[in-house]
């Protein structure tokens, strides 16, 4: 790449991949809540079950719409018939929960024993009459949030390819209904449509909490852009229509497989934009979508400035401070870019996997942010090595380390401020209004330590304690 040769360009490295992250099957935790009529069946071992049980915490007790199909020795040695076993379990799920879709999550074990889930699913689907979507979200291939990527990529195949019969035609068939609603309805529709500019259909992809979906949809509405649908929708039965030539845009940096599937298999056009994280990212995201549709954005600059002004009390806490991302959820580049804009220096951006094409706009924006803010460009470390990173952290003494729970307490005990990275995946961080929530998270350790600073309790391990 030409960019890489310039001295002031981002520096990409790749380490050993000995790092801590969540298993990608954790995506069931937020996806079953997002897709309300789904049931997630994780086909794996006790190890997978134990992870989910512990990672999901109290959610587990709320009769979640997820379960393990726990493989036993007979399944591994093929003494039991996979098809018959899965059929038995899926019929039980149908009986007890009657979901609109069953999502099978393939795991490391199904990969190793080469269980043909993609082959079994269509057969079983026609037999029990419930769609079965197969996603191979396993730890052999993916990290944490990439689990959602595999599920959404599989869902992309299930989006209807033709718009259903339009309202008008339906109305004609139901004359009485039409008569009853005639005057009012028509007026409403016309008025609604006129708020939008005429542009090709746009579908957004990425699972976000419903309030954030509303916020981003309204944000685009202000520019006259209509969001035709979201992948995923609240219900599986409401998956958006995807016709050839539709435009799609991602809201999260870890959705590269979904993006690829939408482009290659559904012939959609991808709008490559930075992600709407932080006011700078949100503005750039909207501007990029506007530019693709030939719309001149209105009032964005003022909007961004206004949001920044509202953030000042938080920003002043972190301005001039440094941050180190150990890397585990792929949000790192976007967060780093936002924090640079807040005046922080980023030492290192660890990241499990770096898709330079899907994240191109985001990377360019990070580079630009560093140059404009006059701070050095961070090193981007793909597949990091946690042991080496901890050594670098000891050397660099960053003001804040964003890391997983395995390292947070030990680093705190050594006087290093940490923020637990997983919170960024569960908190509402997208759009203009949620920028404050990001900073609420980032500044929490600093605010806490301001409160305790005079107590002299920084280092709580004995000197010679090793890493």
């Amino acid at each position, binding site marked *: 790449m030409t960019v890489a040769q310039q001295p002031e360009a981002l520096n990409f490295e790749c380490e050993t991949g000995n790092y801590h992250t969540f298993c990608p099957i954790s995506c069931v935790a937020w996806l079953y809540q997002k897709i309300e009529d789904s049931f997630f069946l994780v086909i794996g071992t006790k190890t997978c079950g134990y992870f989910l049980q512990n990672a999901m915490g109290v959610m587990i007790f709320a009769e979640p719409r997820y379960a393990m199909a726990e493989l036993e020795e007979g399944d591994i040695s093929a003494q039991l018939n996979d098809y018959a076993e899965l059929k038995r379990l899926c019929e039980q799920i149908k009986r007890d929960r009657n979901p609109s879709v069953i999502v099978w999550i393939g795991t490391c074990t199904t990969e190793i024993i080469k269980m043909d889930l993609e082959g079994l699913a269509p057969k079983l689907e026609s037999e029990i009459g419930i769609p079965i979507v197969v996603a191979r979200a396993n730890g052999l291939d993916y990290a944490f949030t990439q689990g959602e990527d595999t599920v959404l990529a599989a869902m992309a195949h299930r989006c209807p390819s033709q718009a259903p019969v339009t309202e008008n035609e339906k109305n004609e068939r139901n004359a009485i209904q039409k008569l009853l609603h005639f005057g009012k309805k028509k007026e409403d529709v016309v008025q609604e449509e006129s708020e939008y500019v005429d542009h090709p259909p746009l579908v957004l992809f990425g699972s976000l909490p419903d309030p954030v979906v509303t916020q981003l949809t309204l944000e685009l509405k202000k520019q006259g852009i209509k969001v035709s649908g979201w992948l995923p929708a609240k219900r599986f039965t409401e998956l958006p229509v995807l016709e050839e030539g539709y435009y799609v845009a991602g809201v999260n940096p870890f959705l590269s497989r979904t993006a690829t599937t939408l482009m290659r298999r559904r012939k959609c056009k991808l709008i490559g934009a930075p992600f709407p994280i932080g006011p700078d990212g949100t503005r750039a995201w909207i501007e990029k979508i506007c530019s693709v549709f030939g719309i001149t954005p209105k009032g964005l600059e003022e909007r961004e400035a206004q949001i920044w002004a509202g953030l000042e009390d938080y920003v002043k806490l972190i301005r001039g401070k440094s941050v180190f991302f150990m890397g585990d959820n792929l949000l790192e580049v976007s967060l780093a870019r936002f924090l640079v804009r807040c005046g922080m220096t980023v030492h290192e951006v660890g990241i499990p996997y770096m898709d330079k094409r899907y994240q191109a706009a985001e990377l360019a924006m990070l580079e630009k942010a560093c140059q404009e803010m006059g701070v050095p460009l961070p090193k981007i470390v793909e597949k990091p090595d946690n042991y080496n990173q901890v050594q670098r952290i000891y050397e660099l003494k960053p003001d804040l380390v964003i890391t997983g729970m*395995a390292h947070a307490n030990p680093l705190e005990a050594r006087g290093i401020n940490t923020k637990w990275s997983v919170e960024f995946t569960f908190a509402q961080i997208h759009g203009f209004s949620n920028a404050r929530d990001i900073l609420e998270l980032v500044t929490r350790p600093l605010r806490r330590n301001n409160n305790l600073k005079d107590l002299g309790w920084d280092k709580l391990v004995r000197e010679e304690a090793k890493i």
Partner: protein
Amino acid sequence: MKLAYWMYAGPAHIGTLRIASSFKNVHAIMHAPLGDDYFNVMRSMLSRERDFTPVTASVVDRHVLARGSQEKVVDNITRKDAEEHPDLIVLTPTCTSSILQEDLQNFVERAQLEAKGDVMLADVNHYRVNELQAGDRTLHQIVQFYIEKARKKGELPTTKTEKPSVNIIGISTLGFHNNHDCTELKKLMGDLGIEVNAVIPEGASVHELKNLPKAWFNLVPYRELGVMTANYLQTEFGTPYVDITPMGVVETARCIRKIQQVINEQGANVDYEEYINEQTLYVSQAAWFSRSIDCQNLTGKKAVVFGDNTHAAALTKILSREMGIHVVWAGTYCKYDADWFREQVSEYCDEVLITDDHGAIGDAIARVEPSAIFGTQMERHVGKRLDIPCGVIAAPIHVQNFPIGYKPFLGYEGTNQITDLIYNSFTLGMEDHLLEIFGGHDTKEVITKGISAESDLNWTKDGLAELNKIPGFVRGKVKRNTEKFARDRGFKDISAEVLYAAKEAVGA
């Protein structure tokens, strides 16, 4: 295949990792895919560890699947050996390596050529044993390894200690109240005039293991962890062991009498009866509690008990024998050791339940409608749903079951803690009923907290839908703020857009 979303005992490798990381300066390397190092999070979170958990993964990825681990495992072992100089590296197989069937023993032998520390392969099969069994085996394996090593070098001590002494076997990281229990046991041994020769595995160094034969006897407080090791030491060195859990007043006395017998057989000539009497009647409050009016009120109340073998059996005996409570059923998830459990509790409860299916447990609780439940975190949540109080007595547990304050379950202080736990569970339930019968503390309902009971503003459909998504406890506040915002700006209708604009305006 089995449909499940909750399990009582974890997978085998968790047991091995618990043993390895309990020892000082022992490192475990898991042969596992990315994300299986969840153990580190648990240890760091639940037991609030200050130090890095000495567990790393030799990651199994696509390449390993295609070509085998080859040099990777060996490299990872020798690298860790050079970085941290552990005394021992335990290569830990997972469900993944069970199916891949790579020759891990061969990797261990190759790595041992280069490594300065010792290297061993944990002998556990994911599909045959669970967390508890694996822990028991791994502890045995490590002890055996170092005993044999010392024997080869001629470093095994041949004599017992001068005064009576004990090895306490089975205290481990992430064990239910293990650290507090350990302190209490040490105190008890001190009272009895018995030296503590070693505590394993928690906090022990593998170099101490060769001294295990010096003890007069071994004490195994928990049924699930340490029996294999104690048996091994008995066969090798004739060291007797005491495996009576000193939990509850009667069992603590029984444990102490057994210790007395064991050491008197070796010429100690001690009599602990006076000590037991003093503790029972005046130091521990549990015996007095049993006589008190408080406890009388509990007579015949129905309870159910579920947990691991050690805790469920001990609690059943305490409830029934020491407090006169009616234990309708007692159960364990240690299916592999069910006979022991049956034998222990049969005479103290109406029915014995052996299962690891949380659904069956939930149904059994609902059927019985006890006044209190004593179980794991899962039973606590069943209790919440059914409005029945629950005292947590066994793993699986959450962070609140790793208290900072001193809360042993064993020994005489343990009897006090258990008494509180039991009594508090029951009275809470009673209070609830009284409130229900007499209509609660305060029967006047608050009509409205809104500043504008009759709002002149119109909430549109989407605005209202959005408002309803906001969690109940802040909804009123958001509604008021939004209406204020709308009124200030002269909006007549409140849509979702207005709601979010108001949110931004107040900077929330």
